[in-house]
């Protein structure tokens, strides 16, 4: 039997893959069968009854199996006893579907009428009004007037907080369970459910704090009525007043496609502000989901504390200055100290910014002293060779494929990747996790390798050595079993991070993992779609920083430089000892992050920033930059997809986009006329960086029809996600796609004797930082400094659950909460809610006797 079946829907034949639901088959030929509970990203349940249609299947002779025919030769059809739900019935060959008959029309009218008997009909004040499936389908299929006695309506609570982020309007809810099913099936956070029965059925939260999930905002998107709303958007605007601008999330290397919905606000003095962030469909990246961090952290763009004017230090004070004055000063000082200058960049900047920044140093000042302010994860050069091949889509991984995840907690560091790996596992892919400790991905893993502190590299080295094509199967050794499963997989994707590892160790790790991918089993696992290495970079554009040559040893396009400059750690030393005279910090806060004590013996410090950070407070010149929402640019994701984002709101104050500021400095140091558009900077990148050859702002904006069709103009998925009209991005090809890559040499890392309790800093999605601090809506969810350790270790330190402790790491002291957690391996302390700490350190923990600092009183 073929994989395709042909069905006839309202007289139109359509051929679809086996297993397709009738409702989807109809959608493919633009026959919109109305639905409420059905959603193409969820399993069908058939409970709203809106999609009832007539479905006939050919009758067959029981004995011979032959199709029976009427006298006129047409196929005899069995339409069953009544209407059937199009969302639960799978197509079969010869099926005939009728969606426009009187019984179908009656059924639709009936369901709409029933739903409206309990609905408050408060469309004029409803957030969903204007993009509401219930409203749309009522207009299309409703009877126009209600026969229900209005005095019989039940009044229910309209402002039920399911947590402080999501509110429920019980009256508007039509009990379709899309939200409940999303939380359970898609993201495995079954923290909301139905309570009670019949007309009293209501959604309740089962968690403390309420609706405890990183994904809660998505339920407001897929809610087909205005029952679920987010705390920061509810009653904020009507959908038709919003201007939607395509954007890309800036909070992790996944690069979720988003839409910024903006509106002019009286309270913002008539300025246009971001009202909400919604997912924009990109089936290659985030499908139609985003995490709550991406949804709620945008408030920093409108924060009143944003820098609005260039500042220049005069008589010890930072005072407002004109752009020309500030830029002249910066250009002059940098040139004056040409021989002792350095630049540090943050990895949230766009490719255009980063490119011009390195151009300033390399071409304008002749220095290679340029690095990321906080380099955590190595291997960009390795990724350029054997990274995830272009044309990959994690959605295609399934049975027969394998995913290896090393030294990272994807759920906290890159939630959408966690989701996609989890879904790959559910489709049958083998997932191997290797880490110091269990993470949320362990539940979906087939092999869990928990190595002892300090044994990460030796474990992975062993794994690579065991991964031989001719190996014996069914080995009882878990490492060998994992290696076997990986190497025999049709496709293999490897994620790696830096949890518990130093920068040097991550470099060795990347090379080891590249060698694993290079083991030939037939083709090897590089250079083919859905194979290769994905680094879990700390920020949204670390990949771009590598590509653009913000690296002391690599020029743009990974060209090694003849005389590598100073690395960030050396730069901090140079600042302290006076060997460096001028420092340019852009989009980073090394002082605030504890990387740089003070301005040391610098003669000149310039900081380009959104906010008055700790570093900026010490600067001679502070240049106010624009946030991502005020400007355009490109980011490159960890999957090396170059994606374009657009200007959504007008600039704050006199701030300028980073690339423009840099271009204007570059002009002043003699690099010619500045580019007047980000797209022109990108054109230069495409010329200089071979990997970006052939890309431009037009090619990045290219779109194609995506399936499922949820962002379109139909009447019932309308609010789910925004249709992608602004670009799917382009993945750049790694070396292995066109050439043979040799195995990497891996330097032996010194084995450090590990005595006593080892402390590792672990990621938490809502860890405090410059940007997240500006979004009050998330303050309750912020990860406070916390240590987690096993019971025995806690007892030895005299600690119990809910105690407070003082933890000292690298001479920085944190006051933390204590959580006793049996999941934590003995001998290990997990420290979360604090800035990044590389590698493992010996834990110095002291119990604090006074639980919490008591208010002293008046």
């Amino acid at each position, binding site marked *: 039997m073929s994989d395709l079946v042909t069905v006839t829907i309202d007289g139109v034949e359509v051929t679809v893959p086996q297993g397709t639901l009738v409702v989807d088959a109809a959608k493919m030929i633009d026959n919109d069968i109305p639905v409420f509970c059905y959603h193409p990203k969820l399993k069908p349940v058939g409970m709203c009854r809106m999609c009832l249609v007539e479905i006939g299947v050919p009758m067959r002779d029981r004995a011979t199996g032959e199709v029976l025919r009427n006298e006129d030769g047409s196929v005899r059809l069995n339409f069953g006893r009544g209407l059937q739900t199009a969302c639960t019935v799978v197509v079969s060959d010869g099926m005939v579907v009728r969606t426009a008959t009187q019984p179908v029309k009656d059924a639709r009218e009936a369901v709409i009428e029933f739903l409206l008997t309990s609905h408050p009909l408060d469309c004029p004040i409803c957030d969903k009004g204007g993009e509401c499936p219930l409203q749309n389908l009522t207009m299309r299929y409703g009877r126009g007037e209600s026969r229900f006695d209005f005095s019989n309506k039940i009044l229910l609570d309209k402002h039920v907080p399911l947590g402080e982020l999501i509110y429920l309007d019980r009256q508007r809810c039509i009990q379709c369970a899309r939200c409940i099913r999303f939380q359970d099936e898609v993201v495995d956070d079954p923290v909301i459910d139905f309570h009670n029965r019949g007309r009293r*059925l209501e959604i309740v939260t089962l968690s403390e704090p309420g609706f405890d999930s990183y994904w809660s905002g998505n339920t407001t998107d897929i809610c087909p009525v205005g029952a679920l709303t987010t705390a920061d958007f509810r009653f904020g605007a009507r959908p038709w007043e919003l201007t939607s601008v395509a954007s890309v999330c800036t909070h992790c290397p996944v690069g979720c496609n988003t839409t910024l919905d903006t509106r002019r606000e009286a309270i913002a003095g008539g300025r246009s502000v971001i009202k909400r962030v919604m997912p924009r469909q990109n089936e290659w990246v985030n499908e139609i989901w985003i995490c709550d961090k991406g949804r709620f952290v945008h408030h920093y763009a409108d924060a009143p504390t944003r820098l609005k004017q260039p500042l220049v230090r005069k008589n010890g004070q930072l005072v407002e200055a004109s752009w020309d004055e500030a830029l002249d000063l910066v250009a002059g000082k940098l040139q004056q100290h040409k021989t002792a200058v350095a630049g540090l960049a943050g990895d949230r900047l766009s490719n255009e910014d980063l490119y011009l920044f390195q151009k300033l140093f390399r071409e304008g000042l002749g220095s290679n002293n340029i690095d990321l302010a906080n380099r955590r994860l190595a291997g960009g050069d390795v990724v350029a060779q054997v990274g995830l091949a272009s044309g990959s889509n994690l959605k295609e991984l399934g049975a027969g494929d394998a995913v290896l995840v090393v030294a990272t907690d994807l759920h906290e560091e890159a939630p959408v990747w966690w989701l996609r790996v989890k879904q790959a596992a559910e489709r049958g892919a083998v997932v191997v996790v290797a880490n110091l400790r269990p993470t949320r991905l362990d539940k979906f893993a087939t092999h869990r390798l928990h190595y002892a502190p300090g044994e990460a590299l030796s474990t992975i080295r062993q794994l690579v050595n065991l991964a031989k094509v001719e190996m014996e199967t069914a080995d009882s050794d878990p490492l060998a079993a994992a290696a076997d499963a990986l190497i025999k997989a049709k496709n293999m994707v490897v994620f790696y991070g830096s949890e518990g590892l130093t920068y040097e160790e991550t470099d060795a790790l990347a090379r080891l993992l590249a060698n694993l991918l290079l083991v030939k089993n037939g083709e090897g696992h590089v250079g083919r779609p859905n194979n290769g290495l994905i680094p879990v970079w700390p920020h949204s554009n670390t990949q771009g920083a590598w590509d653009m040559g913000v690296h002391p040893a690599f020029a743009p396009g990974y060209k090694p430089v003849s005389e590598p400059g100073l690395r960030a750690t050396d730069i901090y030393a140079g600042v302290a000892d006076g060997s460096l005279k001028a420092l340019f910090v852009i989009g980073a806060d090394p002082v605030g992050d504890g990387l740089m004590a003070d301005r040391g013996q610098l003669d000149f410090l310039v900081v380009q920033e959104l906010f008055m950070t700790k570093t900026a407070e010490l600067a001679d010149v502070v240049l106010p930059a624009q946030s991502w929402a005020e400007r355009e640019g490109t980011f490159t994701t960890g999957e090396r997809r170059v994606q374009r984002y657009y200007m959504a709101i007008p600039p704050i104050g006199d701030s300028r986009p980073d690339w423009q500021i840099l271009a204007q400095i570059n002009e002043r140091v003699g690099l010619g006329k500045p580019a007047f558009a980000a797209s022109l900077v990108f054109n230069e990148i495409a010329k200089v960086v071979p990997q970006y050859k052939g890309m431009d702002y037009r090619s990045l904006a290219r779109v194609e029809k995506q399936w499922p069709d949820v962002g379109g103009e139909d009447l019932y998925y309308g609010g789910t996600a925004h249709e992608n009209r602004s670009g799917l991005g382009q993945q750049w090809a790694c070396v292995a796609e066109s050439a043979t890559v040799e195995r990497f040499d891996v330097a032996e890392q010194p084995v450090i004797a590990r005595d006593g309790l080892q402390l590792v800093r672990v990621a938490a999605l809502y860890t405090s930082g410059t940007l997240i601090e500006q979004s009050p809506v998330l303050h309750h969810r912020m990860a406070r400094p916390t240590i987690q350790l096993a019971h025995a270790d806690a007892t030895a330190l005299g600690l119990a659950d809910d105690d407070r402790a003082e933890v000292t790491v690298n001479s920085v002291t944190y006051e933390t909460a204590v959580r006793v957690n049996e999941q934590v391996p003995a001998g290990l302390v997990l420290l979360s809610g604090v800035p990044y700490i590389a590698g493992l350190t010996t834990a110095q923990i002291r119990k604090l006797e006074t639980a919490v600092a008591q208010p002293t009183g008046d």
Partner: protein
Amino acid sequence: MAHILLRHRDIENIHELDVYLAHGGYEGLKKALSIQPDEVIEVVKKSGLRGRGGAGFPTGIKWGFIPKGPGEKYVIINTDESETGTFKDRELVEKNPHQVIEGALIAAYAIGARTIYNYFRGEYMDAAYRFEEALKACYERGLLGQNILGSDFSCDFYCHYGAGAYICGEETALINSLMGNLGQPWSKPPFPAIEGLYGKPTVVNNTETLANVPPILVNGPEWYTSMGTEKSPGVKIVCMSGHVERPGNYEVEMGVTYRQLIEMAGGMRNGRKFKALLPSGGSGPVITEEALDAPMTYEGLTPYGSVMGSSSVIVMDETTDMVWAALKMVHFFRHESCGKCTPCREGTFWMEKVLSRIYHGYGTERDLQILESVANQIGGRCLCALGDFAVNPVLSTIRHFFDEYKAKVSGAGQKQQATRETAVATAD
């Protein structure tokens, strides 16, 4: 005739294992264990035994749907007896528990299950104590647990007590409830025989159905088919209630007429005149005098637009207000609607509102039209059968007793004060 199911009425203390064993107890199981599982299914198929919960699906065929081969499978006994006017399973589990256990063990052996669950109606606590004692005795004697009766067959038995929901008698809702989920049915497929409890093949049988199995194994299928009718063979417990002299359970051969059943129950109470009866608790359409001579079989009431169902016969005499009766039933179904699918959740609520208005004398002609229209909007459009059940009392009383409705809306009837129960009905 000696009872086949209600054997406790003939044999004292048959709930005790020794007594049950002394009267041929567990002989059916022994017989089953002596033949292949497939042969057991064949015997049950040949007996023509059909589901006694009401749907009447052939039991042997249901067992035959279970995939062969290794893997976890389950047998679930449905003792969530919640249909209005139904109390037959209660008597079985309370007075003759071993026959149910034995039947379930035979089912488990036939399909290759190692675990049996009995889903009890939560209110049946007394019966449950008796039943649990019987289970304990079985474990002590090697009739449950490892290597039952020295064979290779091992099986465990657990009881679960429902939390008071009618819908949990529907097999998929029952399975959801048993798994700790909300008691709501799911849209079939998947059928429990393929994906049931914990996603494994599962047979859900009514308590009475399983009580029929041991005697079939002992006496053979021909013995069973010699009773009842061709399409509805065997015996059935009938729950007689309402306006009869002696309400209660009666074990009868299939095919007796409803008139005979009323006579068996001592005739109409106080010699009043018969008006109508509900043949299947609240869920079947009412029948009137014309159908009294129909045989009580799965097909017998088809010409009269009704069903035998679980044969819970609620008899109503001439004093009954049929609008009141319909309201009572609709109130029940509104209260028990799980809320999962729209027509049932919203429609039962709406029907009750309109019916209540009509009953209390505030209805209009238009309300009658709305009532009938709403009922028709529910019927045939729901996920499970509850929606269809809910409209049966309304549509059938409108069909047979339209005059009474007419009288209520014409203003001829006095406007009534809401009684306690109708007030409760409309309060939430």
